[in-house]
């Protein structure tokens, strides 16, 4: 029986799953240790994410430039405005279909940004962030719609909906039945996969400047070496521990999102993607980016 149990367990846990879990668990453990290989990690981020975006956006730019040139040629060679517009439209349509590469606006739209923060624990220096966001016109927005059901009713209904959903057949079981050739009927849609955004909903504050769009951030940090030095020096000057601590301890601005060398005028998705491209193109900017990632601690992989 024991052998059977073990075989079954092995079958369930493929080696790859175990490896994935072990790797993730080891990485989680390392979070509490001295930082190692963090420059390598950041280089991977650059190679796997930023450089992909760089390639996509450069292709889109090139394509759009070719486009503009074609349009200019048409303008120069034709006198008839009606004909010109007709030709332009035709050319534009053909090019878009033929190229199949997304435009830069389409690229901006398919991405979301995961903002990963510096910590208070001094893995590097302690830090936190203040985000600023657009509140202009907040009072002009339509007042709160009272017609919606109160949140308590919504969440009570939601629990019932989820329980009903969970008690119906499993999408995986359906797939298994189909694979095994059993009659399982039509596979139910997996409700954890969203439908495409209906086109009538405009892009939100992450993509187009509007109410609640993030506009700027301020990264604060505590220079621990300096603080500890100042503290000891104040103690030597005869101050008591509490007073010395009060005077020595302070956070200061490490940088803001609009600081050079890769200043961001706003914090829309396109601004982050453009910074990603800049970081690939400019080694000085990348060095600054790394310094900020490690909260001005001077960390390197050596």
């Amino acid at each position: 029986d024991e052998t059977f149990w073990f075989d079954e367990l092995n079958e369930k846990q493929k080696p790859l799953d175990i490896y994935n879990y072990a790797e993730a668990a080891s990485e989680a453990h390392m979070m509490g240790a001295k930082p190692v290989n963090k420059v390598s990690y950041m280089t991977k981020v650059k190679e796997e994410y930023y450089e992909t975006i760089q390639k996509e956006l450069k292709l889109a730019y090139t394509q759009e430039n070719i486009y503009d040139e074609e349009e200019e040629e048409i303008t120069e060679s034709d006198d008839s405005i009606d004909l010109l517009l007709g030709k332009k439209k035709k050319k534009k349509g053909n090019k878009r279909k033929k190229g199949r590469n997304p435009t830069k606006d389409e690229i901006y739209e398919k991405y979301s940004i995961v903002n990963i923060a510096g910590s208070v624990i001094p893995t590097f220096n302690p830090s936190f962030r203040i985000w600023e966001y657009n509140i202009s016109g907040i009072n002009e927005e339509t007042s709160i719609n009272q017609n919606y059901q109160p949140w308590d009713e919504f969440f009570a209904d939601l629990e019932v909906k989820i329980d009903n959903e969970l008690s119906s057949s499993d999408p995986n079981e359906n797939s298994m039945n189909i694979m095994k050739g059993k009659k399982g009927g039509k596979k139910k849609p997996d409700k954890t996969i969203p439908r495409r955004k209906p086109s009538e909903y405009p892009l939100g504050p992450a993509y187009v400047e509007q109410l609640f769009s993030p506009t700027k951030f301020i990264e604060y940090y505590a220079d621990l070496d300096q603080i500890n030095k100042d503290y000891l020096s104040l103690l030597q000057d005869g101050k008591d521990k509490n007073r010395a601590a009060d005077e020595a301890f302070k956070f200061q601005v490490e940088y803001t999102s609009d600081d050079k060398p890769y200043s961001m005028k706003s914090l829309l998705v396109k601004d982050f993607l453009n910074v990603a491209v800049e970081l690939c193109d400019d080694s000085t900017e990348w060095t600054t980016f790394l310094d900020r990632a490690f909260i001005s601690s001077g960390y390197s992989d050596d």
Partner: protein
Amino acid sequence: NIRTNSHRKLHGRFLHITDIHPDRFYEENASIDNLCHPDNEQSKHQNNRGKDQLSSLAPRFGKAMSGCDAPVDLMEYTLKWINETLRDHIDFVIWTGDNIRHDNDRQIPRTESQIFEMNEIVSGKFRDIFENKRTADPRDFDIEIVPSLGNNDVFPHNMFSLGPTLQTREMFKIWDVFIPQEQRRWFDRGVTYLKEVIPGKLAVISINTLYLYKANPLVDNCNSKKEPGYQLLLWLGYTLEELRQRNMKVWLSGHVPPILKNFDKSCYDKFTLWTHEYRDIIVGGVYGHMNMDHFIPIDGEQARRDLETLE
């Protein structure tokens, strides 16, 4: 605030703070090699070596890149600085977890009660700073706080199952004043909730990312209804749709960042796709865990292609 019928001025700013990791065993002048924990013989020996050895001793406010957790003083002075300098200039606080030391000292392994206790202490400090001191209502805050669960806030670390469990109940007790009352039942199941930080207009969703996290041994994927991640994504979908219907915007927040390195692939693809398809209302996502300040763009169209291929 509809509940308290009070008004406050908006500043257009919020604070995101994460991974405080206060360590009550951190001791000034203990050996850094001993994780800044007291080791009587070693500490005595090193203290006798004189000032030239000061660099290997734990300073009062912590040492960057030493591998030590945060001294309690670092937490205290950080929150004090925030209270004195920023409190009156922000609208809400997103606080993304890990409020207890790492489990990295074999001589003093963490216990479940220590984890709850420290979480309670830190939670109390946030409450003290941001509560409305002019009222006796413990749920009335000048500045709303939205905490989320870190992988070190659970015992054993990384491991967290679907509730109701002792741990989900404890977390509810600790965060009682931060969690909207109508969501306590769901919180007890999933430690995920929604908070309106500007009523009727802007919300923050606190996501229990441990249900999507590769390093949680109780998570296999997000495809089966038995999986906690599947249930979380169901909740997320319905909730995002409700926010869309109400014409509200929302920030996503959580401890473990939703990137491929951290999330199970099916959980990553589905989560990324929700983020993408609700791009009309999602303002952004803020996370902690990795201790490094950076950003990662995630591709919603790629996530859909990968899911369709799998299908």
